[in-house]
């Protein structure tokens, strides 16, 4: 595969990366989302990267208010939103200024020329009009008076001018749909369904969309036209899904597969809130959502529900996990099932709330007082969030333990086509509440011992309401077996060891080596870096060099074969959106010279970045 970005617009054969950027109020997320949907229905493989400002209504026209949506469409399977956009849609000067740097040389800049007036230029910090100077010489500039053309298109509809102006995102969408040969019908149908009953808005949006489309046709933009053909994908039915929706659906599925009602205790926090929103809409699946007064109550209520025999879940981001730590420790001690979902974001503290980072791995592993191990798993793609939500619930229920499921802001909001699973093929999750005595006392009477373990070291889950099994549990150390409070040092040492061992013994699938098993260099990843690493490894191997990739879903316990796998490679690189947290774990566990490749800019790795690092490491000799 050659990268000839300068001549063609298509560095990966048959692929195109478009970035929609505008003021928060310009509707660019919507335009990007609709473009994505049409592309999905058209059959492209795709991957998206929405980026929001942290402020809800940053002053209009400022750099702080710029909202962007990147989409990568392709005629073959892809794994990331792309290295750099080929096309930038800039709805105002601030968007141009903030985003121009991301564009490839020779890329196309489509601007809403109407927005380039003195006031907006000043707000964006320009002392001149970039459309007039030499700022854009390295690019192909397409100036479109989108606001006035939109108003013109709407003028006979009886729409107020201000409302008509709002439809300019549909004008942009129409224009891009023409330039990149997207089907029109899905968007028209969507407008009609979305704004049902608000006929004026439907009319305005349709008029703007059609006007944008017609503008492309008549304004001789044909030399900008590009076709990205449908990708060849495995047969089946697809939907375009983002990570948070997939995760929410996975939790619904886990409830159905286990037969347990789902109880979500949650407190709103970006970028996790959408899971709360989504689950709130699906109560018919016996899903209860409880918006608690804080994260401590959120996890507390979930644990209370788990004690009562429900599938207790809490969803949050890093700051929330910090607050939940003590209660998670209680869950470790109580040995009750609980799913804790952390959609990571930039930290510490409030950090970069709308940007991605994956720097909570060590907190997931060790961020509690005392020796309090729990299983940690991480999703790798938006669609994988569905599978890992089910897996987290399965481990929690089967092994009676809190489980930490890690995702991040990137996976949460980015979307990809998902080959829908057959519901009947999903494995049921067995529950098995305790229903009778499990021990006899010295008088020969049946008694219930809440901490009597089975061969998997799992204690019985006896829910309130079960006759005869009344028992008390708590955070004080317990005597193994009887569960009675015990301050005995030897018993505590035993219990600490038991808690460690029962988690360490949870079977997890072996690590799989992708790429060249006989390479010298192994890339180890976890979480959302999967896409960028996979794309990079493919490129490097297509270039004739050898490289291998292991991606970890299970971070605690680690796959049993991992030490052996690592020992086969002389160089181990670990790309992470932190300063090297998995690296520490690998070094600690296996005494290997794993080295970090860090990125903490609030954006995911691009394959180009990783390619640069890895090729540098491999050196020139083939």
């Amino acid at each position, binding site marked *: 595969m050659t990268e000839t970005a300068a001549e063609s617009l298509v560095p990966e054969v048959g692929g195109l990366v478009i970035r929609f950027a505008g003021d928060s109020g310009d509707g660019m997320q919507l335009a990007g989302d609709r473009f994505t949907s049409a592309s999905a229905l058209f059959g492209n493989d795709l991957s998206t990267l929405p980026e929001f400002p942290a402020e809800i209504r940053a002053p209009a026209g400022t750099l702080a208010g710029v909202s962007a949506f990147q989409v990568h469409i392709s005629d073959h399977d892809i794994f990331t939103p792309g290295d750099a956009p080929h096309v930038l849609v800039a709805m105002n000067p601030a968007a141009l200024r903030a985003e121009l740097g991301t564009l490839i040389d020779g890329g196309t800049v489509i601007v809403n020329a109407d927005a380039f007036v003195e006031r907006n230029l000043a707000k964006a910090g320009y002392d001149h009009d970039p459309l007039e100077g030499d700022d854009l010489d390295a690019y192909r500039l397409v100036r479109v008076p989108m606001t006035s053309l939109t108003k013109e298109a709407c003028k006979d509809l009886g729409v107020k001018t201000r409302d008509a102006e709002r439809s300019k995102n549909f004008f942009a969408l129409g224009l891009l749909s023409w330039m990149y040969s997207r089907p029109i019908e899905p968007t028209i149908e969507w407008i009609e369904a979305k704004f049902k009953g608000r006929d004026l808005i439907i009319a305005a949006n349709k008029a703007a969309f059609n006007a944008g489309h017609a503008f492309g046709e008549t304004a001789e933009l044909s030399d900008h036209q590009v076709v990205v053909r449908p990708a060849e994908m495995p047969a089946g*039915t697809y939907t*375009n899904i983002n990570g948070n929706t997939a995760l929410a659906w996975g939790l619904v599925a886990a409830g159905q597969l286990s037969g347990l009602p789902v109880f979500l*205790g949650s407190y709103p926090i970006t970028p996790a809130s959408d899971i709360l929103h989504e689950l709130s809409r699906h109560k018919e699946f016996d899903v209860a959502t*409880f918006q608690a*007064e804080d994260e401590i109550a959120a996890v507390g209520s979930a644990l209370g529900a788990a004690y009562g025999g429900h599938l207790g879940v809490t969803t949050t981001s890093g700051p929330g996990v910090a607050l939940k730590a003590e209660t998670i420790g209680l869950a470790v001690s109580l040995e009750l099932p609980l799913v804790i979902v952390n959609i990571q974001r930039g930290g510490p503290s409030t950090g970069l709330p709308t940007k991605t980072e994956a720097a909570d791995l060590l907190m997931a592993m060790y961020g509690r007082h005392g020796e309090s191990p729990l299983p940690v798993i991480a999703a790798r793609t938006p669609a994988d969030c569905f599978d890992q939500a089910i897996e987290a619930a399965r481990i929690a229920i089967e092994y009676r333990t809190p489980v930490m499921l890690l995702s991040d802001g990137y996976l949460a909001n980015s979307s990809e086509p998902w080959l*829908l699973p057959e519901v009947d093929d999903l494995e049921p999750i067995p529950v098995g509440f305790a229903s009778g005595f499990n021990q006899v006392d010295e008088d020969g009477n049946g008694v219930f011992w809440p901490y009597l373990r089975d061969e998997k070291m799992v204690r019985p889950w006896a829910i309130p309401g079960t*006759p005869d099994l009344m028992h008390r549990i708590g955070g004080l150390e317990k005597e193994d077996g009887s569960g009675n409070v015990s301050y005995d040092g030897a018993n505590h040492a035993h219990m600490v060891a038991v808690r460690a061992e029962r988690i360490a013994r949870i079977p997890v699938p072996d690590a799989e080596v992708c790429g060249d098993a006989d390479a010298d260099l192994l890339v180890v990843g976890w979480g959302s870096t999967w896409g960028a690493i996979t794309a990079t490894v493919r490129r490097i191997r297509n270039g004739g060099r050898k490289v291998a990739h292991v991606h970890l879903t299970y971070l605690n316990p680690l796959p049993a074969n991992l030490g052996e796998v690592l020992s086969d490679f002389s160089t181990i690189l670990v790309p992470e959106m932190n300063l090297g947290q998995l690296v520490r774990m690998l070094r600690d566990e296996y005494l290997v010279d794993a080295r970090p490749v860090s990125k903490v800019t609030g954006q995911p790795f691009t394959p180009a970045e990783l390619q640069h690092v890895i090729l540098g490491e491999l050196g020139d000799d083939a």
Partner: protein
Amino acid sequence: MTDTLLPEGGPGDVPPTTRADWQTDQEVRWCPGCGDYSILTALQLLMPDLGVRREKTVFVSGIGCAARFPYYMDTYGMHSIHGRAPAIATGLALARPDLDVWVVGGDGDMLSIGGNHLIHALRRNIDINILLFNNQIYGLTKGQFSPTSEKGKVTKSSPIGSCATPFNPVSVAIGAEASFVARTHDLDRRHMQEIFRRAYEHPGASFVEVYQNCNVFNDGAFETITKKDVRDDMLIPLVQGEPIRFGSDGQFGVARHDGGVRVVEVADVGVDALLVHDEARPDPSTSFALSRLADRPDRPTPMGVYRAVDRGEYGAAMHAQVDQMADSRGKADLKALLHSLPTWTV
């Protein structure tokens, strides 16, 4: 839904129990003479009378001396973490409306570290019974001032007196929109039982403050009002529908005054001027005013039910929403959910 999880046995055929059925084999670890013992006894004696099932009863507590309570009740129970019992109980009660969920904790547990959970459980009107054992001190951590300790209280952590104004728990609860608020004390078993029964019977969140003596770190804190020989003159019984009147000869009463209430001599104002207690008054102002009669246990203090109003319970509303979605959407269909966004087939 939840029913499939529930073992057999409806309310109709509850086997009778005795006090012994409600006692565990665990050695009770409170200091000899601690007020907690009499509260435990009062409840263990009351439970057989309530005609409830032990397996349907759950005690959830936080941390503190008071919070040891669940270990001594032969029911289901969770001794959780400091302050969080109302939150944990909320999840349990919402998930399992078939259970009787009790919450027990101290003044530090529920008004300091757990204050937020307490007020929100009350505001939401979660169907739980909250017993706050107020000894105006941190017992388990060996005697620091608590959020109910009087200003100027000398303790280990306030050697020349604490600087903060205390909470009045009843006022806090009324301010937090509680639908049932009562106060009782550890020296009067009959009164405790009457109040606990009322709390049990009340739908929604019930809040009971129990004046409890910590004979080790705050001995006699309530003696000035609860001891037998002063009780008549210092405790004001709140009796529904009756003029509020107290004193060994009924010589005192409570009357409205200047937007609030005050203690009066009946001889001065006449019986007709006395405030008639109405715990069910929708407006909480009068109950609140009653709670302000005594901000310290050295003045006549109302005992009994300050407030008991019927107000929608959170769990019922929550489950009604589940049913509403189930009714409007029909049978839950996972496949349909997965196909609910636009799909395409290759």
